[in-house]
């Protein structure tokens, strides 16, 4: 029912764009506010729909997934959360899907953040992953199966010092348990004991610092989830093989949800995004059609 209404609304929205085209052609472009309204409607309607979007898996996502698949069950994985709530729409679905996948593979997860809000976002992701019945049945223990070391200020210097010993930067976890009393950390000194580092990042400090220090100096294996804005800046490192793979923006998140079969919010959001995207593209097209017809008239 909701689907039918939504689809009808979307068709109406499309038809009204024809009107916009006609108006713009007559040299009377629509105002800012109408553009705003289009964006709001285009982004909102699909949230009420339940449609499967056919999604091809891009190479960067597949490479990341393959690298994760190659890890033996029970591997020690560090998850670094370097973002805050404004970037959560893109990164949180990635984090949730990653946590679900990792818990199902029995990875031992060590969480930390170079952004103050990062470890809080991590807790939310764990929270959500735990609601999966298969994971809940595992009865995972804090401190044994996963640990949250919390936030540490100092940007890239934190990673630098962690190269010697994690303990220097994280003498206690976020619950103020001393490092040495955490069962999971007992045999972990520094990056040499970590099999994989996954970084969720929306800026700096973030993936670039992880590449430059953890990968280049300490030889870690790194995968990352980035906002769409950050992703282009990371491409040079991806291309140079300093990272095994990358989830870029919402489509990266949706693809990751698909390839790990952990359907989540990104799979819903991606439809909203596609339609909002389409609106922007159509508006640019209308603008240009109008521009050229005007130019021809002048000739």
């Amino acid at each position, binding site marked *: 029912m909701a689907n039918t209404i939504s689809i009808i609304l979307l068709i109406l929205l499309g038809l009204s764009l024809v009107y916009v085209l006609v108006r713009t052609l007559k040299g009377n472009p629509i105002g*800012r506010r109408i553009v705003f309204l289009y964006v709001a409607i285009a982004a909102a309607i699909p949230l009420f729909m339940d449609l499967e979007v056919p999604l091809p898996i891009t190479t960067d996502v597949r490479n990341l997934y393959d690298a994760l698949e190659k890890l033996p069950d029970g591997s020690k994985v560090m998850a670094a959360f370097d973002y805050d709530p*404004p970037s959560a729409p893109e990164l949180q679905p990635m984090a949730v899907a990653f946590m679900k996948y990792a818990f199902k593979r029995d990875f031992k997860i060590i969480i930390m953040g170079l952004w103050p809000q990062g470890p809080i976002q991590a807790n939310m992701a764990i929270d959500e992953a735990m609601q999966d019945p298969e994971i809940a049945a595992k009865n995972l223990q804090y401190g044994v199966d996963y640990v949250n070391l919390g936030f540490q200020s100092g940007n890239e210097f934190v990673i630098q010092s962690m*190269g*010697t*010993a994690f303990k220097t930067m994280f003498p206690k976890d976020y619950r103020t348990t001393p490092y040495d009393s955490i069962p999971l950390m007992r*045999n972990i*000194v*520094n990056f*040499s*004991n970590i099999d994989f580092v996954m970084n969720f990042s929306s*800026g700096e400090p973030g993936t670039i610092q992880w590449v430059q220090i953890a990968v280049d100096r300490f030889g870690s294996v790194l995968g990352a989830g980035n906002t769409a*804005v950050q992703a*282009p*800046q990371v491409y040079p490192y991806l291309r140079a093989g300093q990272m095994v793979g990358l989830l870029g923006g919402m489509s990266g998140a949706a693809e990751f949800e698909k390839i790990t079969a952990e359907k989540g919010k990104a799979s819903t959001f991606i439809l909203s995004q596609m339609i909002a995207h389409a609106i922007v593209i159509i508006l640019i097209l209308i603008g240009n059609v109008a521009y050229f017809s005007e130019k021809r008239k002048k000739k």
Partner: protein
Amino acid sequence: MKNSLADRSSGGIICAALITIFFFSGPLHSQEDLVSLSVKKIAPPSSLLATDHKYDNGNSISLSWVPSIDDALMNNPIVAYKLYRSSNDTEPNLIAELPPGSSYFLDNGVSTDNSYSYSVSASTNAYEVLSNRTESITPQSEWINYNKKYLFLMVMIISGAIMYFIVSAKRGKELFVRKIAGLEAIDEAVGRATEMGRPIMYIPGIQDMDDVQTIASLTILGRITRTIAEYDSKIFMPVARSLVMTAARETIKASYQAASRPDSYSDDMVNYITDEQFGYVAHVNGLMVREKPATVFLLGAFFAESLILAETGNSIGAIQIAGTARPAQLPFFIAACDFTLIGEELFAASAYLSGEPMQLGSLKGQDVGKAIAMFFVLLGVLAATVSAAWDIELFNNLLDNLNELFS
């Protein structure tokens, strides 16, 4: 555990331990099991060498060793190498665990006040065997880092070029500098505000004084306010950092003095809003639609807010001159502003506006830097391409040298 490790003949103890395990693990094991277990005992890593890491502040020691001969590709019994360090002959501590195949480690956790000795063990899932312990070593601190000699050379060449042109410009050598549209437009933009009787808004980005872009912005501010003071226009400048507020006030005050209008200056021109990125943006947006400045300058370090500010400025019909060194934000300024300074132009702007020969000379020096960069790019591409295709020794050597130069 620790005692057995400190013991150099730990092999015997491990054997004994295995025998003990065997006897306590019940009657299922036969005599063959015991034999196969003791035969499988792995060889320890050997030739452990601890040397002072050169050219540092005495805070690292490099360790290298020959991996155990049992460290094989297939069916590797070794799961890790464990490094132990004893400082001033106290109990050894585990400092690192490295994957099989490792033969090198840089220990950054030392200081010149102590002496250290090391041992490394190869460990399987069941036991570990220890290498000999190294002699005691005290790390040394050096004064000069010779590893960075090429970096020093490069810095000297580039700075030398810049200074050479500064000096030659000072001696009166004529220099050509191409027009930068965004900067040519400043006079007109300030004049327009004066004519319309509306104020000028200046936004120096949202970063603090420890970002070079903010400093570049303030140097431009100094030039622009000079013009503003001469036209007797009004400027207001909301800022996101207290330090920037203080520095901007100094800058504007100085410009008003230089324009012989010290009485027109007031501290109210610059106000601190909040350090919070979007809190600042919320306020600046409101200010824009309420004060309706005729001209808006957006010069400095901008992040996501670039488009919010530029679009709001556009909606009130202001002339906008923007510039930033953040590539990701440049497209938004280009879309919503009248003029945009791209990257390097932001840092050159103050020198350009000053029109002083010495400042312009430094721009010429920058160009020499670009020419050098282009030269090395082309030379490196040539060397790498030829050396990959035909393996000619001359080009191989050239490539090696270039790689060392840029390492």
